[in-house]
């Protein structure tokens, strides 16, 4: 019977086991793969691994610092040997039964391991599905592909028909002979873009596809031209393919199911949900502890610190978490005579929205947040700012100025800023600090994570959002209390892209308010949907028909994933009654919209162009680069300007991207309202700017490539930093150095690594976006979707 069994030899597990060894605690470290740190082993050779967050000190018996993958893995291997960690490789856990003091861990190989406590550090990657045939573990078989450029002139078989398999096959086909083995007779699971690519490659003969085929075995050969044979069962009989390499891309088994089978509960079905843990990392199953990415901490250093701390906690030692000093300095200057834990407890007690958050999550939230004490009258944020952080009030009050005539006071325990947090749009009000005010500012990413894992937080925010929206948009002079009954009847809706919200000719019974996303308004002409206009978030729709008590005059569809709040007819009438002047204001809005509609209706080409722009996903854009092909001379100064002002790499590709009529959408960031790239950035390096709303990547990017993969528009690249360009005059007069913005400048430093780069809207350039400023003819323009109506009406 071990005192502690650690499952998973990643950074957290290694650190935990090493601490056990250091303290002479009887332990075992179970690792399913044949090597330590499976995820990091899969990084490409020589990859630079960062040690974010830089401010957090490391607390672990084994070494870790930013550096090459090989150095880090080497250090860890020596580290666990030195302290004497008891590690078992190839020990894949199948089940855990028993309870604290007597857990039985069953392994896939049939063995059982007994332990009093269990530490789970299995990460989020899951184990890749194996081929399930003889030879699946041989040297020629791999389950990942980091850099397709590494392989040349090889014969390679890709097993699988998903997006990963197709992407690998296409990339490898450039320099290799590639076979793809598909169990079915078509590529049903692939994204449309990948489907087109693979079908074209198969038609052109650059990739050979075995349809309705599955692998039967891998035979390793000695000598000869090919190191292995892949045996296949095909629809027409057996086949043997001689190969250099087999890459199986059959997906991964997500760890959540396995973890749930141990009895550990997740608070919601949301795929980002993390198990509820105590401040000592203990799960709802007493004696099972969760650390690292599985517990919501994706960074190596955090996981290692937790590995150390969790062992101390299990042994009953009272250690302060490694982040204690960081929090202490954050709380420094607050008027409380309390330790860090005391301040945290006080905050949770005073601020109801955080009451249901568990202590560990709240601690993490405060690490990301900042606490400030603005003087009375200071502006906390301004209306139309592009910030989207969330504020809670610890002490004092703040004044929210919705418009010059309406100021709302929010008291201690309350919150503000949730509108922009939810919609991703600009601030809808200006907020001033009141007397003796202390506010906590939490970044959007941390709040979104919290909302997806704590249902109570989501509920409170939603309710407040609805009532404040109603007040701001419809009834600014009506007190919140009077609006509460109306808000209680409001409903929230979610629409997928292209889903219909209501149809032309339907009876008008509700008003929708777009909370986030955006919609298109279309009417049917000659049996064809003709798009009339685009409506962004924070706007009501459907009020036209409600006011006139008629049927819907147009069809409204979600342009992107959209959330709306709906009010029924009765609530709407009640609002009209309670709020003086609302009817007149809405009527004025309706008039504007009618005028817009008439302008568009007369021109079907404009409408087609609008549909095209929406089809390019520009409905979720906030600022997009478009090129008028009728005046573009193809000089590429836009790209040169971008490269010259951004460390040698152009963040836009002028030629790529589709064109309709003569409006071209180059591959360049459109600064989405709710950016997909920001969703999974471990060091939180992707930020949204305050004034222009630009989405940009900070210097603390660790080069993981998540954002590149998550961006649906392919506008993020991984690039090395290059040296400053040479002088213009030496190039011009003597041909020395590189052509401005074009030539290849040298990579900075030996140890440099690729970081994610994308358009930052030239936030550091004094004159604004350099692509537009460098365009000699005026073809390049930057627009926000609200300007599209003007654009399509001018372009004929």
């Amino acid at each position: 019977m071990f005192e502690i069994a650690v499952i998973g030899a990643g950074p957290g597990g290694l650190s935990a086991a090493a601490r056990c060894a250091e303290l002479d605690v009887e332990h075992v470290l179970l690792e399913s793969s044949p090597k330590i740190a499976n995820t990091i082993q899969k990084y490409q050779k020589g990859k630079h691994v960062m040690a974010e967050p830089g401010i957090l000190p490391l607390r672990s018996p084994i070494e870790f610092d930013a550096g090459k993958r090989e150095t880090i893995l080497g250090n860890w291997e020596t580290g666990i040997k030195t302290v004497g960690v008891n590690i078992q490789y190839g020990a894949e856990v199948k089940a855990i039964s028993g309870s604290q003091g007597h857990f039985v861990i069953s392994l896939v190989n049939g063995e059982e391991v007994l332990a009093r406590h269990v530490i789970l550090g299995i990460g989020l990657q899951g184990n890749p599905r194996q081929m399930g045939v003889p030879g699946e573990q041989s040297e020629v078989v791999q389950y990942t592909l980091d850099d397709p450029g590494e392989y040349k002139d090889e014969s390679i078989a890709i097993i699988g028909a998903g997006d990963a398999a197709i992407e690998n096959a296409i990339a490898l086909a450039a320099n290799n002979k590639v076979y793809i083995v598909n169990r079915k007779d078509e590529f049903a699971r692939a994204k449309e873009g990948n489907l087109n690519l693979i079908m074209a490659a198969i038609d052109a003969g650059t990739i050979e596809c075995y349809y309705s085929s599955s692998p039967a075995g891998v035979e390793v050969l000695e000598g000869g031209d090919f190191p292995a044979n892949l045996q296949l069962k095909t629809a027409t009989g057996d086949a043997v393919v001689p190969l250099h390499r087999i890459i199986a891309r059959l997906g991964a088994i997500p760890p959540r199911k396995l973890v749930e089978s141990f009895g550990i509960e997740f608070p919601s079905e949301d795929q980002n949900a993390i198990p509820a843990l105590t401040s000592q990392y203990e799960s709802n199953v007493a004696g099972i502890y969760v650390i690292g990415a599985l517990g919501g901490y994706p960074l190596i250093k955090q996981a290692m610190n937790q590995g150390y701390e969790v062992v101390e906690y299990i042994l009953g030692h009272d250690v302060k978490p490694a982040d204690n000093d960081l929090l202490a300095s954050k709380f420094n200057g607050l008027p409380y005579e309390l330790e860090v834990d005391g301040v945290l407890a006080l905050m949770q007690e005073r601020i109801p929205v955080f009451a249901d958050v568990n202590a560990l999550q709240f601690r993490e939230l405060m690490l990301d947040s900042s606490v400030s004490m603005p003087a009375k009258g200071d502006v906390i944020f301004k209306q139309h700012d592009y910030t989207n952080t969330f504020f809670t009030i610890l002490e004092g009050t703040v004044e929210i100025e919705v418009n010059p005539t309406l100021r709302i006071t929010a008291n201690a325990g309350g919150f503000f800023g949730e509108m922009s947090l939810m919609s991703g749009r600009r601030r809808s009000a200006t907020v001033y600090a009141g007397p003796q005010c202390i506010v906590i500012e939490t970044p959007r990413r941390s709040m979104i994570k919290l909302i997806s894992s704590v249902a109570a937080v989501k509920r409170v925010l939603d309710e407040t959002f609805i009532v404040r929206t109603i007040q701001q948009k419809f009834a600014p002079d009506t007190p919140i209390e009077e609006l509460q009954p109306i808000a209680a009847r409001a409903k929230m809706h979610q629409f997928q892209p292209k889903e219909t919200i209501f149809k032309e000719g339907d009876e008008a019974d509700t008003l929708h308010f777009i909370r986030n996303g955006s919609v298109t308004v279309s009417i049917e002409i000659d049996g064809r949907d003709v798009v009339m206009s685009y409506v962004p978030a924070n706007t009501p729709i459907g009020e036209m028909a409600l006011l006139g008590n008629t049927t819907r005059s147009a069809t409204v569809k979600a342009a992107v994933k959209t959330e709306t709040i709906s009010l029924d007819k009765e609530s709407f009438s009640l609002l009209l009654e309670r709020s003086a002047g609302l009817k007149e204001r809405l009527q004025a809005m309706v008039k504007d919209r009618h005028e817009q509609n008439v302008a568009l209706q007369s021109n079907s080409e404009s409408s087609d162009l609008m549909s095209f722009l929406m089809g390019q996903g520009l409905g979720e854009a906030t600022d997009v680069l478009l090129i008028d092909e009728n005046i573009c001379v193809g000089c590429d100064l836009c790209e040169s300007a971008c490269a010259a002002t951004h460390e040698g790499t152009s963040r836009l590709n002028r030629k790529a991207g589709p064109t309709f009529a003569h409006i071209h959408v180059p591959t360049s960031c459109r600064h989405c309202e709710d950016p997909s790239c920001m969703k999974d950035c471990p060091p939180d390096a992707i930020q949204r700017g305050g004034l222009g709303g630009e989405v940009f990547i900070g210097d603390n990017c660790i080069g993981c490539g998540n954002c590149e993969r998550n961006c649906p528009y392919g506008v993020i690249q991984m690039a090395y930093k290059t040296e400053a360009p040479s002088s213009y005059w030496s190039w011009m007069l003597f041909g020395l150095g590189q052509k401005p913005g074009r030539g290849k400048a040298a990579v900075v430093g030996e140890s440099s690594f690729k970081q994610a780069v994308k358009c930052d809207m030239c936030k550091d350039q004094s004159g604004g976006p350099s692509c537009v400023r460098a365009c000699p003819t005026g073809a390049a323009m930057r627009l926000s979707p609200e300007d599209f109506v003007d654009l399509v009406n001018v372009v004929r």
Partner: protein
Amino acid sequence: MHISFLNHANGRYFWVAIALVGASIVAYLLQEPHQTPNGGTWLGYTLGTMGALLILWLIYLGRRKRNFAAGWGTVRGWVSAHVYLGTSLLVVATLHTGFQFGINVHTLAYVLMCVVIVSGLFGVWAYRTYPEARNELKRSQTLDDIFLQLEDIDGQLKRDVSALAADIRGVVSSAIDRTEIGGGMYAQLAGVDSSKVMIDGNVYPNTDQVRAVAWLVERLSVAEGSETGKLSAVVRSYGARQKLLQVIRTDIRFQALQEAWLYLHVPLSIALLAALLTHIVSVFIYW
């Protein structure tokens, strides 16, 4: 919404240029009547200095458009000013000459300047004409897209004729192999097509694929049995190929025309700079 260099800032530099030209003409007409108009009068000097400074500034556009970090205005604005003020130079410099021309370095500088300006005016016209014409020609596709389509059709044709008689195979594959696109500057500008085709062991010119199409059509008329259907499919594909080649060739020609003027405009600007320096220096030395 959509502003080109010609209507930048509501044509601000157009009006500046008009004012400059107007003021120069008025000053020229009002100058003392007993003095023969020439470069040496006070007005001659003023116009000459202004013209020389303008020329230097106009040439500086080559630097400004590559100075991507510059915060001073947009390149569109600079181009707008370059076009209008550059054109106004025709009047300013002509008045500076006082209509005294001869076979000397002074007139050489003037002539070079005129050629540079006229080539620039052609450039303005080309920039306003060809991008739109090319976009319409290619129906909003890129040239690369069309080359890919051509590649597809060529592959398709080669596969289709592989099952047909040797004479058809020979003509189609030789026509594909001997198709020429682009070429030297003259070939691009004039749209010269020196494609060839081999028929019965003889090589014939195949401009615009006419010869190959004619042969195929004639061959189709004598085809029999299953060959007829297959060959008529080949003829259809070949027609599509001919159209694609026309689009490609026209686009390349338009692109060449769109850019050709620069090969005159830029080197002659440098020559003008040299001639201008000589003109100024010699005027002061031999005065």
